[in-house]
């Protein structure tokens, strides 16, 4: 029997590590991987609460979250690769053509 609070702690740690990656790193692909870590932390919570409450609806939402995260990774990577080819860099401090 796994205490749910411990799972929540692990999930919170994963989320905070991912948040650090999103805020601190400047390489866009590392930021994308960090977003994946954050999404996984939330999906882990869905599965754990589904197990804790005996209600399989949480697994359905976990499945939806996994599909959305995979789509986000594919589109994000495509966007960053084409930005790299047009601008020669994916440093998030240098990509500022959407700012004025």
């Amino acid at each position, binding site marked *: *029997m*796994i205490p749910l*609070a*411990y*799972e*929540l*702690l*692990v999930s*919170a*740690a*994963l989320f*905070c*590590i*991912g*948040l*650090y990656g999103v*805020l*601190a*790193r*400047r*390489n866009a*692909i*590392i930021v994308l*991987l*960090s977003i*994946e*870590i954050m999404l*996984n932390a939330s999906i*882990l919570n869905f*599965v*754990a609460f*589904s*197990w804790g*409450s*005996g*209600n*399989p*609806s949480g697994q*359905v939402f976990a*499945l*939806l979250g*996994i*599909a*959305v*995260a*995979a*789509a*986000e*990774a*594919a*589109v994000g*990577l*495509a*966007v960053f*690769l*084409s930005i790299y*080819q*047009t601008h020669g860099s*994916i*440093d998030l401090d240098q990509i500022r053509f959407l700012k004025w």
Partner: protein
Amino acid sequence: MDVDWEFIAFLVLSVFEVAGSILVVINKRLVRAAFWLALTLVTIGAIYLLFLSEFIFIIQILVYAGAVPVLVVFGIMLTRRRIMDEPGRGGVVMLREFTIVLAVAALFGVMAVSFLAPVSWPQSATAIPVYNPPPTSSPGIANSLFDSFAIAVILIAVLLGSAMIGGVYLAKMDEPGKVGP
């Protein structure tokens, strides 16, 4: 003495998971970060197994641990090597990282206290309006997926298909400087 092996397995997997994710965010080399991400995703899948969610475990291994790191690694390897490098960092960047570490640690502290303190969280699941299992069968995940949430499955398929096509459209480039076909 009765040893709770499930809990021990959970703790070991959690250590691997947190260490792997830390190595993802602090790694300077993109390819190594992608492989550490694969380790993190596989251990998260193993935790799904501990939570008796075998179907989500399979999906996690197939979609996440299989596809996402391979996608990232191939995306990096098919471009030039310079995409892996990160420019050198000065004192201002170090100060910013230190501030971010402090802020994230404070956020984790707030969450940890709220999880471990005796807060009266709701103990039973709130009824979701669209969830209505048939009274004669046990409410399994397939019941939910293909009965109550059938439209969600269709939307997942449409979303994944359109995202992949959109990714190909964005990444395809015939002449330099021109995005899209």
